[in-house]
């Protein structure tokens, strides 16, 4: 059994965008469920466009709402991951683009056959300047100083986080993923470039944290577990290989205060690994490979990061994952709500068993996360029903509650 497979619940970003919403730590049963289920870790979001809608100007009430959620979690004895999210248009330069310039970005934001309505938001364009002196660097510095244990500008000594995860699914959500097309078709393939932005973020964050003497653990890249690459997305392994190679080439050593993070929705949903119970497991060899385990294997010998700076035994934090009821219907053909809920619970249990095993797919996996207590209408991965529908716990909640707890 893994020494410490931590359990985390990731709340949704709406908790900071819409304070008081069901994804707010303080709303409904969120606090009670964390305590009751023995969950020791919770993940919050620092949605940059919400917290800083104008150049250098904080939305004070929203910032205070985030402070209050963090303080409440700390008072409850929770360990906390905070994930910066999205980029304001004033910081990424899209606010000054002309209509023609915006039109030219479409190959990086949608496929050639999609309408503009399917384009990625301008809020997912990463800034060109990711240095400590740039807008992103200054936002990171604000978060690091504000939420470091005993940070110089922490509102209270109880307002701190343990981990600052620098990005969220950059290989799926951000743009551009690739440089200009190498063919005449602007929607054609180009060289992958998104890793370069992530590396620059990593380096800047380390410099900022070191400069202020922060005890906070930095983390990233929070990769989406997608396995194909095109202009709009980059396979997690392609991203990881490039990040690791670039860091090595630059002589950057992450050190014990920098953790690698990854998401594992596909692993949970398809029961990835030996003996997968996915409906197509007999005909689809991909089902026999656990992607989190594959990700962790790629770190061995190359990522001297958290917790001990030992590249020989790197640890991986899974900071999002889960199984949606809609996938229980679509992937497993379960049409009855009760059957969907039972299958969701079974898959969460099976994922735990895989990840907790030190000798198998769980080697080096230090945390598994459940995305959402309260489900949302369009992403029903929660282990409880939607708040609006009464928020009843699902069988998966009992499964989650029955798992061991580690700090």
């Amino acid at each position, binding site marked *: 059994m893994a020494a410490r497979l931590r359990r985390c619940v990731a709340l949704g970003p709406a908790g900071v965008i*819409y*304070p008081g919403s069901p994804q707010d730590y303080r709303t409904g049963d969120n606090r009670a469920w964390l305590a009751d289920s023995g969950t020791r870790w919770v993940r919050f979001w620092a949605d940059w466009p*919400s917290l800083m809608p104008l150049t250098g100007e904080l939305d004070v*009430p929203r910032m205070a709402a985030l402070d*209050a959620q963090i303080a409440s979690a700390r008072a409850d004895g929770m360990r906390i991951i905070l994930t910066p999210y999205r980029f304001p248009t004033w910081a990424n330069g899209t606010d000054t683009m002309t*209509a023609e310039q915006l039109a030219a970005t479409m190959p990086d934001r949608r496929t050639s056959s999609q309408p503009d*309505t399917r384009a990625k938001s301008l809020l997912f364009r990463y800034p060109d300047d990711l240095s400590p002196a740039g807008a992103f660097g200054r936002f990171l510095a604000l978060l690091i100083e504000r939420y470091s244990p005993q940070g110089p500008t922490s509102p209270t000594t109880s307002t701190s986080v343990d981990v600052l995860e620098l990005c969220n699914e950059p290989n799926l959500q951000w743009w551009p993923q690739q440089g200009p097309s190498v063919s005449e078709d602007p929607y054609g393939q180009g060289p992958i470039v998104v890793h370069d932005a992530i590396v620059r973020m990593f380096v800047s964050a380390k410099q900022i944290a070191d400069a202020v003497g922060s005890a906070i653990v930095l983390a990233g890249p929070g990769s989406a577990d997608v396995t194909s690459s095109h202009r*709009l997305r980059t396979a997690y392994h392609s991203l990881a290989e490039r990040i690791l190679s670039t860091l090595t080439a630059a002589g950057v050593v992450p050190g014990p205060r920098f953790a690698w993070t990854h998401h594992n929705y596909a692993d949970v949903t398809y029961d990835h690994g030996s003996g997968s119970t996915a409906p197509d497991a007999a005909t689809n060899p991909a089902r026999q490979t656990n992607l989190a385990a594959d990700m962790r294997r790629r770190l061995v010998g190359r990522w001297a990061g958290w917790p001990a700076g030992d590249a020989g035994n790197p640890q991986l934090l899974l900071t999002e994952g889960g199984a949606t009821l809609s996938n229980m219907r679509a992937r497993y053909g379960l049409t009855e709500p009760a059957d969907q809920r039972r299958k969701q619970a079974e898959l969460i249990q099976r994922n735990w068993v895989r990840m907790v095993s030190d000798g198998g797919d769980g080697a080096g996996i230090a945390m598994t996360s459940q995305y959402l207590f309260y489900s949302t*209408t369009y*992403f029903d991965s929660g282990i409880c029903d939607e708040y609006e529908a009464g928020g009843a716990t699902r069988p998966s909640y009992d499964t989650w509650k029955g798992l061991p707890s580690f700090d």
Partner: protein
Amino acid sequence: MPATRSDAEHLDASAKWSWVARHRGSLGGIFELELTRRQILSGAAATGLGCVLAHAPQAWPTVSPSSARGELTPQRARTYEALVAAVVAEPPLRLDPACAGIAAAQFADAYSPWSADARQRADRVLEALQRGPDGLPFSAQPRGARARFLRACARVSSKDPAAAERRRLALLESALGLVAVAVGPAEDGGRGLVSI
């Protein structure tokens, strides 16, 4: 007295808007009706709405029969298109509002196979939104006024918003959730966010 489908069936449009006009404030009748997020979206709306309906028993427009047939009503489709046209032109997307028609068609396609509960939740949001600002239905407002209304809904005045503020935030979140059905990358699998 619980709100039932029959309340809406018995309400003609002129009576509905007459009543709403008398009960509307700067941010729309939904807030004066003291609806919670849960009531807006659940389709139940029994307890709290019952208190309101005790004073206006025929007034509350709920879900019209066409929703039960699985089709988006023409008025709700217009509300949705007006919503998308306002949202996509804002700084997070800066798209041509004319593309809202495409999104509305895609939303109507997505809506039809939803469960009755899901359709009713969407209906409630669109109807609450349609009650809109400044004495005119949302879809009848100029696009700029619709955008201002949505931006006003997004404002937060305290770290622990009061009930009325939570309700308008909830309305905005729900409305933008509907926009995200047809706007933004389909590959997000429902986790995508649309912002104003």
